């Protein structure tokens, strides 16, 4: 089994909406790789980019205000910040509570 061989490691990025089958695909590829002769190692990095990264983590609270640090175009676009609004972080804390972070990414007018 496994006609194709690679001589170098490869990064494999899964692209798709939630529910597209990314995790299933990752696991099935991992299982199939383990069945090869010789087996091929597969590391799976699970990530959740729809959760704004800078809303995660409690160690931010001692950093003090960073009014502009997280308003780069890349981060704004990643968080889906509407035009005319800016990401809000004061002393590293989101305005939204932890339970609402998914539903309400931390941007502010």
């Amino acid at each position, binding site marked *: 089994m496994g006609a194709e061989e690679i001589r170098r490691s490869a990064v494999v*990025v899964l692209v798709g909406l*939630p529910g597209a089958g990314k995790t299933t695909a990752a696991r099935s590829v991992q299982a199939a790789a383990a069945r090869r002769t010789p087996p091929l190692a597969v590391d799976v990095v699970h990530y959740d980019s729809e*959760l704004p990264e800078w809303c995660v983590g409690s160690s931010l609270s001692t950093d003090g205000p960073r009014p502009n640090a997280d308003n780069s175009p890349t981060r704004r676009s990643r968080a889906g910040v509407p035009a005319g609004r800016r990401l809000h972080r004061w002393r590293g804390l989101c305005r939204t509570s932890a339970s609402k972070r998914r539903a309400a990414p931390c941007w502010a007018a």
Partner: protein
Amino acid sequence: MLHSPAAPRLVVLDDNAYYASMRHEAYQVARAGRRPSGQKEMHEDHVRRLSKPPPCVCLLAGVAAGALYVQVHLPITVEAALARNAQRPAAAQQPPALIRRMAERLDVPDPAVRPWETGTVTAGAAEAQSGAALLEAVLAAAAADEPRLRVWQAAAKHRDELPALQVASAILRPNARSSGHN
């Protein structure tokens, strides 16, 4: 089963990667073993402060420079995504509005626009569940990426050498700038 540390391996990023920029960061990590230099400070700052490292940092743990790059696109309609989301346990569900917004903003892999996405495999639901077929498609795409990696490495080497060559050229021709207009 033990794997040799030096043996080739696949590092799969199980993320939505709906913006092309997200995927390009992973591409840069695969090729150069690091994020683009302009983002280095932000990256380190990010890692230091946040408990959740960005996906590229996770990738860095498993990839050395000069890795191959493959994307697997799993297309799905918004309606199907919403239906599957509704079938998940409540704690694992995403807000429907987020899925709709992500669908609107999804940059579908397009090698014609972004040549670095040439190694894209499009997989349907059946292929996603059939690991062997998908694995072979991924490995074929990875093998086809070898020549592109060599081109990238040659270009990177040229970029690295260029500043030194420019300095050497300026030293060898100290009057080059003024002589052209006199």
